[in-house]
């Protein structure tokens, strides 16, 4: 033993072989790493950073502290739970802060932010910002009180709620976007978080609907895709490949065009209804409503997502040797029972892969539900898009996004627990 440890192999030029080999190995590792660097960089920039940014936005709230630093300090001692207004120094600080903020064009921005929490603050800050300099000059010249002057300028400064919002959002880290995303509300006075009355709930309802419709779409793609994949997998590979290309054909046309053609087909004055009326199956009054509702979303999205079910199913089925079925039949099983007991279980990894792919894709879908979903077929992502591009409430959009992400991870986890993630196979 000791002889092996003391003995050292040397290379021809006298270096320790072990060290040389180690160096060589390290160099190869570096080279291999260099190859994946572009992808890694892409994933970090295109995927990880946006998610981190989303997490940051959903809780970040520096704007009040940054825009009104003196006011935040002055409000430290004020009891937001009480019914009295803040004292004169708080009003004075606010006036001072707002003059500076207006100078930097930040007062209205703050108003927009706080308006998400309390309607009316947008205009209050816009008005106040615009006139604060005059007001301050007035107070200085008359040696009056900021409190009285501000309240006289806009009565909303005399409402404790306006100040409560200011104090509440002095915190730089807030969970309020999450409460909103979960249809909860934090009482301004007591700080208690409670669920909104069911009449006012939006997001929980939308999350629920998104999941239910996505499950429906997954099921529909499975029911349509399974026989199709089975058929293609059993064809000779030349014909099979041709059919696979046909399955992929929908990807060659733009999503918008495909969705619009569904409108042409499915609307009440559309091709299918016209046909059914012409044939006499439907009466003119009994035209079916197949679009601008849940049905429309399910039909259009099933069509769009079908390839994501067919492809993994096909590639798994292609690897299932026909000898399994033969074995089962030779062992005495009726062909139908052999199919269910032997063939079908072997396709489960493909079903799992397809189902998870379709489900997760559909849960985040947005353009198709927007166009054909009407009132009852829209998803949570449509609300996220609304908050990104219309209401500009990016914090809430981020919180909804994080909630959706969390939900998808939970589904994934659940799937792993029940089916096992290594049971997924794409081929």
């Amino acid at each position, binding site marked *: 033993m000791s002889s092996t440890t003391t003995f050292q192999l040397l290379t021809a030029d006298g270096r320790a072989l072990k060290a040389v080999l180690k160096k060589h190995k390290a160099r190869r590792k570096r080279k291999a790493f260099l190859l994946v660097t572009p992808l890694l960089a892409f994933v970090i920039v295109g995927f990880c950073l946006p998610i981190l940014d989303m997490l940051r936005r959903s809780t970040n709230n520096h704007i009040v502290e940054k825009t009104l630093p003196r006011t935040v300090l002055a409000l430290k001692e004020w009891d937001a739970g009480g019914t009295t207004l803040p004292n004169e120094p708080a009003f004075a600080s606010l006036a001072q802060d707002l003059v500076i903020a207006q100078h930097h064009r*930040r007062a209205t921005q703050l108003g927009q932010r706080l308006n998400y929490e309390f309607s*009316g603050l*947008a205009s209050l800050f816009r008005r106040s910002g615009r006139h604060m300099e005059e007001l301050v000059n007035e107070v200085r010249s008359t040696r009056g009180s900021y409190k009285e002057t501000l309240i006289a300028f806009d009565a909303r400064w005399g409402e404790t709620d306006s100040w409560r919002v200011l104090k509440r959002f002095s915190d730089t880290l807030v969970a309020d976007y999450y409460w909103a995303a979960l249809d909860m509300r934090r009482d301004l006075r007591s700080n208690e978080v409670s669920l909104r009355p069911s009449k006012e*709930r*939006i997001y929980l309802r939308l999350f629920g609907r998104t999941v239910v419709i996505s499950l429906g779409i997954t099921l529909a793609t499975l029911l349509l895709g399974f026989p199709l994949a089975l058929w293609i997998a059993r064809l000779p590979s030349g014909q099979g490949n041709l059919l696979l290309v046909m399955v992929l054909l929908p990807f060659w046309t733009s999503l918008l065009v495909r969705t619009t053609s569904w409108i042409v087909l499915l609307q009440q*004055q559309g091709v299918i209804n016209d046909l059914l009326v012409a044939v006499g199956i439907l009466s003119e009054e009994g035209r079916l409503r197949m679009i601008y509702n849940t049905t429309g979303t399910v039909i259009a999205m099933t069509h769009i997502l079908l390839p994501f079910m067919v492809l993994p199913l096909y590639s798994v089925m292609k690897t299932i040797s026909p000898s399994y079925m033969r074995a089962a039949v030779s062992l005495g099983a009726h062909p139908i029972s052999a199919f269910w007991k032997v063939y079908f279980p072997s396709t489960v990894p493909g079903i799992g892969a397809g189902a998870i792919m379709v489900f997760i894709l559909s849960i985040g879908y947005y353009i198709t539900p927007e166009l054909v979903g009407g009132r009852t077929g829209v998803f949570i992502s449509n609300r996220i898009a609304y908050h990104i*591009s219309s209401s500009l409430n*990016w914090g809430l959009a981020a919180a909804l996004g994080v909630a959706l992400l969390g939900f998808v991870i939970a589904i994934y986890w659940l799937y792993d627990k029940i089916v096992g993630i290594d049971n997924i196979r794409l081929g």
Partner: protein
Amino acid sequence: MSRNLFVALAAVLALGLSACKDDKASMEAKPAELVVVSWGGAYSASQQSAYHTPYMEKYPQVTIVNDDSSNEAVPKLRAMNEAGNVTWDLVDVVAADAIRACDDGLALEIDVDDTLAKAPDGTKASADFGDLLVSPCFIPQIVYSTTFGYRTDLVKEPMTDLCDIFDLARFPGKRSLEKQPINNLEWALLCDGVDADDIYNVLGTKEGVERALKKLDTIKSEIIWWSKGAETPQRLADGEVVAGSTYNGRLFSLIEEKKQPVAMLWDWQIFDLDGWIVPKGISDEQLEAVKHYLYFATDTQRLADQAKYISYGPARSSSAPLVGKHADLGIDMAPHMPTDPNNAKNVLLFNFDFWGDKRDEIDEQFQAWLSR
């Protein structure tokens, strides 16, 4: 004598005015490339014909590049602003977005008298635009309205009253409404008997919003919601809906250009404005070029010219008399303008202050109602 003096004075004044005007216009444009963001489609085409093409003919050293991103202009501006890389030079937005961008510090405040041309009679630009200057960042271009069109062949009698929309007994069939509370709630309250002057007081309370939603409940099952301006014209053309709201220019094109059996229901149309904002963060040279372009593109004649291509009213009062015939159809454009007295018997003006404050809150209420 005095009369002669007056004429002379007027001539001098006119000369002086025109000299003054030429002074600004003759300032040669520097070579530049301007990225102008607008709505695409017929609207961008009208701007191309009325503004861009004549401008580039006059100043060939300037190139104007179109970008059809107006429907998400503010979020994109915000993203550019956060990234510190503003690539747009001039953005066409509706007034509400302009106010929003201005509040968020995404747009530059523009002194209109300093930057824009005077009216031919010498009126200052600020007076010529008047009340339409709803934000210090906003240079109005057109007045448009959101109003209803209906299928003439699918109704027994013409629709003339806004409340016909809510009358399923006389006018059965689907209606196409925009998937947002703005406009719909006002219309609902008007037809629920609320006085036009009182609408925003009522909408200011939760109960008022509920009252409007309750009115909408009466036709909820017959509503097909739209989110893109092209959807209502399409549905009207297909006969999928009997009536629907959209921008008046879209309906004009459907009726006059595509010759569909559709008519306008101007009653209680809601006026809104569309115009330019200049993004904050562009370089000084670009800003110079943009201002040079704006001086040209927002003068009285240019604004009146745009009405040759699309039925939106010019934002300068001095442009109104210059509105002529449609460039291709040759029909008189004045009767198709939302501002025409015959069309504007009952109108509402988009309430920027109210919706600026209340939009988020009411939208939540509206969405909850929608998903019920």
